Structure formats: C-alpha cells, structure tokens
C-alpha cells in the first residue's frame, strides 16, 4: 500500500508540474525547445533522465545481477565519454544552428527536406521502439508492484507521461526530467549503498559473491564465462561485447536525438558543454553503485526471475520501507522521464519534419495546437503497439540504440567536419546504416541469428553507413549554399566568447579531473581492494 501511495504522489506531482508549466507555453519555440533558455541544471537533468530508463535500472542492473557487474563498468566509461565528445564535436554546432528539431538540422545542413523527413522517419521508428520498451518496463513494474492487471498499469503509465508531455511540451519535460533525475539518482545511490552495507560491507560482499556456486566469476572483470549461466563464451568475447556496445552507446549520447535535442534548449553553448561534463560525471558515479549493488542482490536471493526485477525485489524485500519506496519511485521516474522525452520527439518529428514534407502539408490553426494533436495521435499508436508487443525491455532498448548509432553517427559527425559529404551522401549513409542495422541486429536479437565477432551487426552497420556516404557523395558536387551553412556554423557567436562564460566552462572541465581521480579511488575501495584481498582470484 505504501508503495502505491508513493508512486501515486509522484505521478500527481509530475502531472501538476506539467500543467503549471504548460500554461506558459505560447509559441512553437516554447513548445519545441523551451524558448532556448534552459540553465545547466535542467539540461543536465534532462540529458541523464532521458538516457537512463528501465533499460538501466531494470535491464542493466539485471545483467549485473546475472553475473556481469564489472563488465558493465568496462562499457560505461566509453558510453559516458560520449557526452563530452558529443557536445564538443556535434552538440554545440547543433545548438548554434538554432533549429527546432535535430532532423531539421540535417535538412538545413544539406538543403534537403527529403533528408529531414528521412531523419524524422528514423526518429519515429527507432525512438518509437525504444518508447515501447520503456513503457513495457514501467507498466510491468507498476503491475507487479500494486497487483493490478497489466493493461490497467499500462494505461496509468501512458496517461501519466502523455498528459504532461502533451500539455507542456519541452519546458514541462525539462522540469519533470530534472525532478525525476534527482529522485532516481538519490534512490539508486542510497538504495545500492544500503544493499552493500546489509551484505556486510564491500569486502564481505565481494568475498561472498566470489563464493557463489551457480554464478562463478561474477566478481571477475569478464563475469561468468563457464557453466549453464554463462551469457559470454570467453573473456575475449566479453571484452569485444563491452567495447562494441560502449562505442554504440558513446555514439548514442553524442548524436542521438533524445540526447542532443537537450542542447537545443540550452541558454547558450557553454551551458551545453558544462551539462555534457556534468552528465558524464553523474552517469559514471551512479553506475558504480548500480552495478556493484545489482550484483550484491545475489547475496539475498540468487533466483530472482526475470533478473530485470532484481532491484525492485530488493526494494520490496531488503531495503527499509522508506528507501524502498524511493527506489521504486525512482525507477518509475527514470522510465517516465525517458518516455516523455521520446514521445515529445516523435510528436515533434511527425509534425515538424515529416508531415510538412508530404504533399506540401500545411498545419491548420495554431502550430502549437497542431503539434499537441499530432503528439496525442502518436501516443495512442504507441499505446496500442505496446499493448500487443511481447515484453523485451533490454533487447528492444539495445536494438534501437544500434539503429541510431549506425544511421546517425557518421552523418552527424561528417556534417560538421567534412566539406565533401553531399545531400546524396547523407541520405545514402543514413538509409544504409539504418537498414543494415535494422535487418542484421533485428535478426540477431529477435531471429536467433548468430554471427562471428568480425561480422558484428554494429561494425557492419557503421561500415554500410560510411559506404553509403562515400558512394552518394562521389555522384554529385556539394551544394555551395549547404557549404555556406556549414561555414557559418563553425564561427562562434560573439557572445559565446565572453570571458566570464569561457572561464566558467574551463573551470568545469578542469574541476572534472580531480572528480574522476576520486571515482577511481571509490571503485578501488568498493571493488578492487576487496577483490585483491580474496585468497584466490577467479
């Protein structure tokens, strides 16, 4: 009952905030990019909240519980580094372009409404799949928590995120994302810290985990590679998996629409850069606790099924009630925050990037009202698909990530750094990367196809995208006006050169250095020193 009250109160809070903020939305710029006035805390909160969802708190914590906590920590630094590399190499130029959506950037950069519509289409398919996965995770959690049928939980979750996204657009999403960000970071760090303490502290926890009979090697860097519970065949396979997925997720946080669109809302470029640095720091800190804590749930129960519910099981059976409520509310918050961002992006893309391209479609009446209508229709479609689709939170999440990494990654980076890439090249690269990733990754994830390491779908999709770019660009000359647009993007506006702004940004990046030394020391205290004190190393 107390869990139900906690969740209900948080839902009411989000809807109320959305309603309050929505009353101030007047223009399309307000609705799409929050008037480009967001400060660092809101951009950081939304970056992390849009990224972390049930995929992290259920899927990846479950993966740590299954036997791969340290392997996930091999993946995470590459993933988190994407925030800073992304904002420096792409995000700040995207913001400088002053577009309303990321597909619009591609359309303007290559002077191609068709490319804008194509990019919008990938947003609808890729983020739509991700939204379905996140909605599934949240409704499964709610259904399990309060004992209502799945369809009822799905409806409640859908109403919650649709209502405040539909009404308040980006300003509401920014604010609710940031509230949710604080809830789930606090819940994640406090909840997992408590689990480690209850397990007897880091040294005892690592020692007991090393002795787990049915999960041998759970505390080694590569996780379980032998026995019936092994999901990896060898340490080398585990390393290839972590590095490949690390690069995929690095690309995602660097160029994906649900991350880079946050920079469009930033007050200035320096806010974007500072937010990227902070987001990297928060993700790295949080994952230390999520992964080590996720593995330590084994010390209370080794047979939780599905493993995606490991953290929720711990919240209900191990944590004190208040902390358990905070954790469960936090996990739902992580899901809702991602869902609201995804829904808003799909709605914006349909209304702004795709429909105007089809038959010279022109919105009747207010564009904000039309955007809201499009979002509602889109959301109803997602609700129906989610109802009939089988649950696969982690699988669909990783599938969608690969789609975007391959189709958007090379085109986004080359749109800034190449004068040779042309409209055809961009269309070819985006289409080839998307189709290759969709077919190959789809067959691997859902069709049981097994490929050798060298034929990893991610690598082949990146290669296909690059091939599409080269082949398309060789067949035509770059458009001079497109090159002028790019040239203008490379010149920072005068106000971005103000001494105070630059100095503050430099302090952020310099201050991050001791923080990351501290992160290594923290991981050392929680994992390495206890591991080194074991009598034998697995």
């Amino acid at each position, binding site marked *: 009952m107390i869990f139900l009250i906690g969740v209900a109160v948080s839902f009411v809070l989000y809807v109320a905030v959305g309603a309050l903020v929505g009353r101030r939305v007047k223009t399309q710029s307000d609705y799409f990019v929050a008037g480009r006035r967001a400060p660092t805390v809101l951009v950081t909160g939304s970056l992390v909240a849009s990224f972390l969802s049930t995929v992290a708190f259920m899927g990846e914590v479950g993966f740590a519980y299954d036997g791969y906590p*340290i392997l996930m*920590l*091999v993946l*995470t*630094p*590459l993933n*988190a*580094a994407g925030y*800073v*590399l992304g904002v*420096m190499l792409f995000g700040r130029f995207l913001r400088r372009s002053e577009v309303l959506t990321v597909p619009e950037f591609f359309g303007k950069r290559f002077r191609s409404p068709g490319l804008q519509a194509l990019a919008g289409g990938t947003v609808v398919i890729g983020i739509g799949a991700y939204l379905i996965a996140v909605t599934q995770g949240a409704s499964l959690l709610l259904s399990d928590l309060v004992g209502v049928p799945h369809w009822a939980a799905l409806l409640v979750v859908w109403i919650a995120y649709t209502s405040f996204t539909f009404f308040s657009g980006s300003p509401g999403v920014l604010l609710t994302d940031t509230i949710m960000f604080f809830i789930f970071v606090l819940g994640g760090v406090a909840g997992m810290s408590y689990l480690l303490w209850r397990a007897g502290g880091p040294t005892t926890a690592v020692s007991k985990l090393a002795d787990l009979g049915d999960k041998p090697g759970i505390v*080694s*860097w590569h996780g379980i590679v032998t026995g019936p519970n092994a999901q990896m065949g060898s340490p080398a396979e585990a390393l290839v998996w972590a590095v490949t997925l690390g690069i995929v997720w690095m690309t995602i946080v660097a160029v994906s629409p649900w991350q880079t669109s946050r920079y469009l809302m930033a007050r200035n470029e*320096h806010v974007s*850069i500072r937010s*990227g*640095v902070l987001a*990297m*720091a928060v993700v*790295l800190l949080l994952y*230390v606790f999520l992964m080590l804590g996720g593995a330590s749930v084994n010390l209370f129960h080794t047979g939780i099924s599905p493993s995606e519910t490991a953290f929720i099981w711990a919240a209900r059976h191990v944590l004190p009630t208040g902390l358990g409520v905070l954790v469960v509310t936090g996990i739902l918050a992580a899901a809702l925050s991602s869902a609201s961002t995804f829904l808003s992006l799909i709605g914006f893309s349909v209304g702004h990037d795709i429909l105007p391209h089809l038959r010279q479609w022109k919105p009747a009446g207010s564009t904000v009202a039309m955007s809201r209508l499009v979002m509602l229709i889109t959301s109803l479609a997602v609700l129906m698909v989610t109802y009939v689709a089988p649950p696969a939170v982690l699988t669909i999440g990783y599938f969608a990530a690969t789609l975007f990494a391959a189709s958007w990654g090379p085109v986004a980076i080359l749109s800034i750094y190449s004068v040779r890439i042309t409209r055809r090249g961009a269309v070819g690269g985006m289409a080839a990367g998307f189709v290759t990733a969709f077919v190959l990754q789809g067959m691997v994830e859902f069709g049981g196809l097994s490929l050798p390491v060298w034929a990893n779908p991610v690598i082949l999709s990146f290669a296909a995208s690059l091939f599409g770019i080269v082949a398309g660009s060789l067949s035509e000359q770059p458009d001079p006006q497109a090159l002028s647009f790019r040239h203008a993007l490379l010149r*920072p506006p*005068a106000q*971005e*050169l103000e001494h105070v*702004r*630059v100095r503050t*940004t*430099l302090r952020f*990046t*310099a201050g*991050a*250095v001791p923080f*990351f*030394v*501290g*992160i*290594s*020391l923290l*991981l*050392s205290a929680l*994992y*390495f020193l206890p*591991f*080194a004190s074991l009598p034998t*190393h697995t």
Partner: protein
Amino acid sequence: MAAALAVVIYYGAVPLAVSVIAYVLVRRAYGRRRRP
C-alpha cells in the same frame, strides 16, 4: 588482480582524458585568440 586494477584505473582515466580534451577544445574554440 592486474585486470581488476586495470578496470579501476581505466574507469577514471577515460573520462579524465576526455575532460582534458574538452578543456583544450574550449580554450581553442572560445579563447582569446578567436576574439574579434
């Protein structure tokens, strides 16, 4: 044990290196040399 130590060092070293790169890029992109 060496592998475990390597993971711990790597976990801090990757973001540290990226922060240093960002520091250099910010100075180059917005530093005094670029002022009109």
